[in-house]
């Protein structure tokens, strides 16, 4: 049993091997082979996670730390690379690799069509390389034993997010040459960067206060440090919240997630619904010893989550792009999760994380199926019309072009419906159980948050209903929708698996059984709230409060009914404006335009920043430094010294004088001495006699 734990490095190494193999040999393998290899790597990682889970179950859930190697050792700083296998990390591993593998398989079929619609078949391989890299990085994140290792994975998934959002970097979502996709990737990177900055400050403070960043050591010392320097833990937790806001798309750093829909749909499903964005929730859950020491921070976290949930839900109700609705829905659901872990309901938050992964992935992938259907339909149209010049720009994502797809794509319709019902929280689908637990915990601890979350849940059901009526019912509002086709099996089969999980996922933590609670209990201490609660709240059927549950169910059904009234009973016609536009007026305009948050950010942050940097670049760097200082001062001095001093004075007048002077001297000396050799023997003889006389004289005198 012990040896199974030593398998844990494989969860990282298998995807890495997969991506390396694809890089090296991918150009020689066919598309199916590339996709199969990548899916196999991810699938094997899932198998290993499963084995780890079984091993952990058999050893009673006691956490294991598996050392891998020495990483950083400078002075007192010693951060090894250890893998931590405990119930929380194994849960995350299973979700990531399981859902990830299904999405890999889906992507084999999706990308096959996508690269053909965008005319770049060779890019297929790059997609799977990046996907495997993502799995590897996410595994590092969830299996690390220290905050720094977590951060390595944190940054890694941020990088993969950038790479995958900007997969079609030279186009926009409609395939036209544009900066749009790469700008979206950049936005994701920068917004995440702001979050990472907060995370890093928290990590540095942690090292300063605790002397270590490893989980065991930090959590062990937490209570002592809280007593000695109380403000430190508050600081650390609040700045970690900034990181969470960046990675898990909370207010104020959520703005990258809707733009991230520019990436291919499998990316949106995997990264921006099921796994990467949940990293923030995981972080808070992991840091529960720190958070439980500072109730003030908990309140802040919970409020941020709740407000985000409501805010995003409002925006989602006014969006027309099928993926944008789901994106804002994700932000809203993440708000639920963050609120849950903020309140201390770690289990509820993790439970919702798991179920959300199932049905959100299902929804995204089904949306992808819908989009592909629309593209196929448009393709048929183009062929049928023999029209070479597509004057109109066709957006396959726009719900206003869809309609009546229930008849064209029945399987996708049913799967999408299952996802919708799960998200809306309808009994007995998975979302009902998990959302209900959050609402119950909120009701007991923070009534204000309970109210906010309930409104958000109402809106969730509303906009999902709106979406279903608009997409699948009524008449097609564009000819392409009329020609849409069902997707191939390689796409629909993973969807069916996910649908099954969405239906049955609630079994993870059924009231009374509390499987997940007990499982996570080994890692996360559950805080029993002893506060006084109203009697109707105190009612508990094995941890399940029927009144709260019934209330949320009724609200969800009412929301769906209202959406039917508006969108379902009288389906929209082509070109008709949204029925809510008139009654709600400026509120709807705000919802439609995401409350102009991006525009506000641009004006408040970006514009001054760009102005300052332009100033620094053009004026200070350009005109001052380059044009004046470099040219006049440095270059001028140099030219002066070299031309006037060195060249003229030293080289020409001094050194040349010496050199030429010596030459002249030699010449003149030789010219005069040459006259000695006049060819007359007699004068030579005279010279000899002269020498004789002198030598003789010298010898005599001496």
């Amino acid at each position, binding site marked *: 049993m012990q040896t199974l734990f030593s398998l844990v490095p494989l969860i990282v190494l298998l995807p890495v091997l997969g991506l390396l193999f694809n890089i090296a040999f991918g150009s020689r393998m066919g598309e199916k082979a590339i996709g199969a290899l990548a899916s196999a790597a991810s699938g094997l990682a899932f198998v290993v996670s499963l084995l780890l889970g079984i091993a952990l179950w058999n050893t009673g859930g006691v956490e294991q730390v598996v050392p891998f190697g020495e990483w950083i050792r400078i002075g007192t700083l010693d951060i090894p690379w250890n893998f931590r296998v405990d119930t929380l990390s194994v849960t995350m591993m299973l979700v990531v690799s399981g859902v990830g593998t299904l999405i890999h398989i889906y992507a084999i079929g999706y990308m096959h069509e996508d690269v053909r619609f965008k005319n770049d078949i060779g890019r297929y391989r790059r997609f799977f390389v990046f996907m495997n890299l993502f799995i590897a990085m996410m595994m590092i994140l969830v299996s690390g034993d220290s905050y720094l290792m977590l951060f390595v994975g944190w940054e890694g998934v941020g990088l993969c997010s950038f790479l995958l959002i900007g997969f079609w970097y030279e186009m926009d979502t409609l395939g036209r040459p544009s900066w749009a996709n790469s700008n979206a990737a950049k936005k994701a990177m920068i917004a995440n960067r702001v979050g990472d900055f907060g995370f890093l400050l928290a990590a540095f403070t942690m090292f300063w206060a605790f002397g270590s960043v490893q989980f065991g050591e930090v959590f062990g010392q937490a209570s002592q440090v809280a007593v000695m320097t109380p403000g430190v833990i508050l600081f650390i937790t609040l700045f970690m919240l900034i990181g969470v806001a960046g990675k898990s798309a909370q207010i104020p750093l959520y703005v990258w997630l809707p733009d991230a829909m520019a990436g291919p749909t499998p990316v949106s499903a995997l990264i921006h619904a099921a796994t990467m964005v949940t990293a923030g929730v995981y972080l808070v859950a992991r840091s529960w010893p720190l958070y439980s020491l500072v109730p003030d921070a908990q309140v802040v976290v919970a409020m941020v989550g709740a407000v985000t949930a409501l805010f995003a839900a409002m925006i989602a109700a006014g969006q027309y792009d099928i993926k944008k609705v789901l994106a804002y829905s994700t932000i809203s659901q993440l708000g639920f999760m963050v609120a849950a872990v903020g309140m201390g309901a770690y289990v509820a938050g993790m439970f919702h994380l798991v179920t959300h992964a199932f049905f959100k992935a299902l929804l995204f992938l089904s949306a992808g199926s819908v989009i592909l259907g629309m593209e196929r339909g448009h393709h048929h149209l183009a062929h049928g019309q023999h029209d070479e010049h597509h004057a109109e720009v066709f957006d396959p994502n726009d719900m206003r072009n869809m309609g009546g797809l229930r008849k064209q794509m029945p399987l996708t319709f049913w799967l999408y419906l299952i996802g919708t019902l799960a998200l809306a929280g309808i009994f007995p689908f998975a979302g009902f159980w998990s959302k209900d637990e959050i609402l119950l915990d909120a009701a007991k601890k923070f009534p204000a948050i309970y109210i906010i979350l309930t409104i958000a849940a109402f809106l969730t059901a509303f906009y999902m209903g709106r979406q279903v009526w608009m997409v699948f019912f009524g008449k097609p509002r564009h000819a392409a929708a009329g020609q849409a086709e069902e997707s191939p099996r390689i796409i629909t089969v993973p969807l069916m698996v996910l649908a099954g999980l969405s239906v049955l996922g609630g079994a993870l933590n059924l009231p009374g059984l509390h499987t997940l609670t007990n499982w996570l209990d080994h890692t996360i201490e559950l805080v029993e709230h002893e506060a006084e609660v109203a009697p109707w709240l105190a009612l508990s059927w094995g941890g399940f409060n029927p009144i709260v549950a019934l209330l949320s169910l009724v609200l969800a059904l009412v929301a769906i009914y209202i959406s039917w009234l508006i969108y379902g009973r009288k389906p929209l016609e082509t070109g008709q404006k949204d029925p809510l536009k008139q009654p709600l007026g400026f509120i709807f305009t705000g919802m439609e335009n995401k409350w102009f948050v991006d525009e506000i950010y641009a004006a408040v942050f970006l514009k001054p920043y760009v102005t300052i940097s332009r100033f620094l670049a053009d004026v200070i760097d350009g005109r001052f430094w380059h044009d004046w200082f470099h040219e006049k001062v440095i270059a001028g001095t140099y030219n002066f010294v070299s031309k006037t001093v060195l060249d003229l004075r030293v080289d020409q007048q001094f050194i040349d004088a010496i050199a030429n002077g010596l030459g002249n001297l030699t010449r003149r000396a030789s010219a005069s001495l040459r006259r000695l050799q*006049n060819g*007359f023997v*007699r*004068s030579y003889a*005279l010279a000899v*006699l*002269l020498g*004789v*006389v002198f030598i*003789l*004289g010298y010898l*005599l005198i001496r």
Partner: protein
Amino acid sequence: MNLTLILFYVLAVAAVATAAGLLLSRNSVYAALFLVLNFATVAVFYLLLGAPFIALVQVTVYAGAIMVLFLFVIMLLGAEKLPKGQVLPWQRPLAIGLAALLLVEAGFLLFQRLRTTAILPAPGAELNTTATLQTLGLALFNQYLLPFEVTSLLLLVAMVGAIVLTKQVKGEQA
């Protein structure tokens, strides 16, 4: 005052005079004849110095062979008088000056440094014992054999050289 000394003075004057004659005569034949006389006086000197063999060799070789050779060449070349024309104007005064200086130095050397007061006796009975031809020959062929042989080689070389130098290649103008 003895006979030999008087003889010596006379001969000395004769030697110097003939040398001066050689120096000053414009005619090459006269100069050659002056030189012959000079050789003769020097031969008598040798006799006075008790070297009869050398004296005779002097007359035979120098006056008899070498000067004859000189006269032959003078006759052959027929250039007795040379055209006037001083190319090196400072040559003559400088040469005379240097010669005088050399003489002064020689005198200095002789009478200041050397200061010999040796008197060389007139040749006497030793002519029959020490300075005979036999003694010379014995010394020549015993101690000085190598120089002797080398000298013979030298003479051979000189002969060959003289022939080669004056040889005319066929076709050249005589």
